[in-house]
């Protein structure tokens, strides 16, 4: 493992040890965040899958109705029937925070002059196929909006999970081992310095004693 380019001093080591503690705590928290995000994401994405399959099926049915309608009506009258819609559909956009990811919450707001009056045309010159098509599409609206909300949430959460996973991995496999290696390196270096100065002192002491008492001469 590569080590950081630092001076092997006690002060530096204390600093690194503090940083290591922070890194470990951060790693633990990010890991928890990732796990929880993942759990919620999986739930959401399963719901998303279910809803999408349903919506797609029903939308295809709607398209079928429209195709039928266009078969029995002229293109011009069909277009003019659908042109001026009576109701205006919009959504109220709120937001929800799932593990620090801001996801939108859509709630449908539809303004129609009369409840149940969704058809933007009179019944005299249009086929009943068109009524089917419009009403089935209208019934599908809540699901379509829900799908948009869930799918956007999934998209945002997937991106956040990826980011968090990268952070967790970089802490776990790069940052923390690097801190540990550097701390170990400094500790070794300090011990080594300590031993070398100790032996030097012992040597000096021997030399001084030798000078004062002349041990080697007395032995003879």
């Amino acid at each position, binding site marked *: 493992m590569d080590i950081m380019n630092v001076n092997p001093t006690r002060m530096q080591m204390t600093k690194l040890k503090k940083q290591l503690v922070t890194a470990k705590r951060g790693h633990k928290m990010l890991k928890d965040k990732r796990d929880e995000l993942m759990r919620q994401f999986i739930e959401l994405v399963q719901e998303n899958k279910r809803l999408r399959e349903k919506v797609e099926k029903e939308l295809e049915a709607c398209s079928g109705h429209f195709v039928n309608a266009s078969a029995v009506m002229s293109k011009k009258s069909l277009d003019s029937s659908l042109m001026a819609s009576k109701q205006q559909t919009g959504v109220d956009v709120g937001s929800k925070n799932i593990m620090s990811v801001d996801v939108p919450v859509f709630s449908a707001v539809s303004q129609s002059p009369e409840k149940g009056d969704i058809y933007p045309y009179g019944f005299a010159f249009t086929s009943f196929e068109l009524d089917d098509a419009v009403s089935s*599409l209208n019934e599908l609206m809540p699901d*379509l909006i829900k799908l948009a909300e869930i799918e956007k949430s999934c998209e945002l959460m997937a991106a956040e999970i990826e980011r968090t996973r990268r952070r967790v991995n970089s802490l776990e496999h790069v940052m923390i081992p690097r801190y540990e290696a550097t701390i170990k390196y400094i500790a070794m270096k300090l011990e080594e310095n300590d031993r070398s100065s100790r032996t030097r002192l012992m040597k000096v002491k021997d030399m001084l004693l030798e000078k004062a008492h002349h041990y080697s001469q007395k032995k003879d």
Partner: protein
Amino acid sequence: MAKSIAVIGDSESVKGFGAVGMDMFICDDPPSSPQLLKQIAENDYYAIIYMTEEVFEASVREREKLAERPVPAIIPIPGVRGNTGIGVRRLSRFVEQAVGSDILFKN
């Protein structure tokens, strides 16, 4: 704050959505859709933009720019030409991005 819903797609597919109160943008030529999407997304007027699969495919780069923002949500829907499975593939890509491998849709 109430925002509107937009639908982009070929004239056949989006026709019906106009009747239920969404704003429709007809785009019969998929290569021109990124420009249209950019205009629509610009002023933050729309919260949801549904796109038919053909135009959804054609505007990858524009969509990526908007992916990080909470609104608008850009959602693919099957058009009259049928379902090509883009929606489900998109979901499986989310799973792959999040988990590392596709554990839900692989079968």
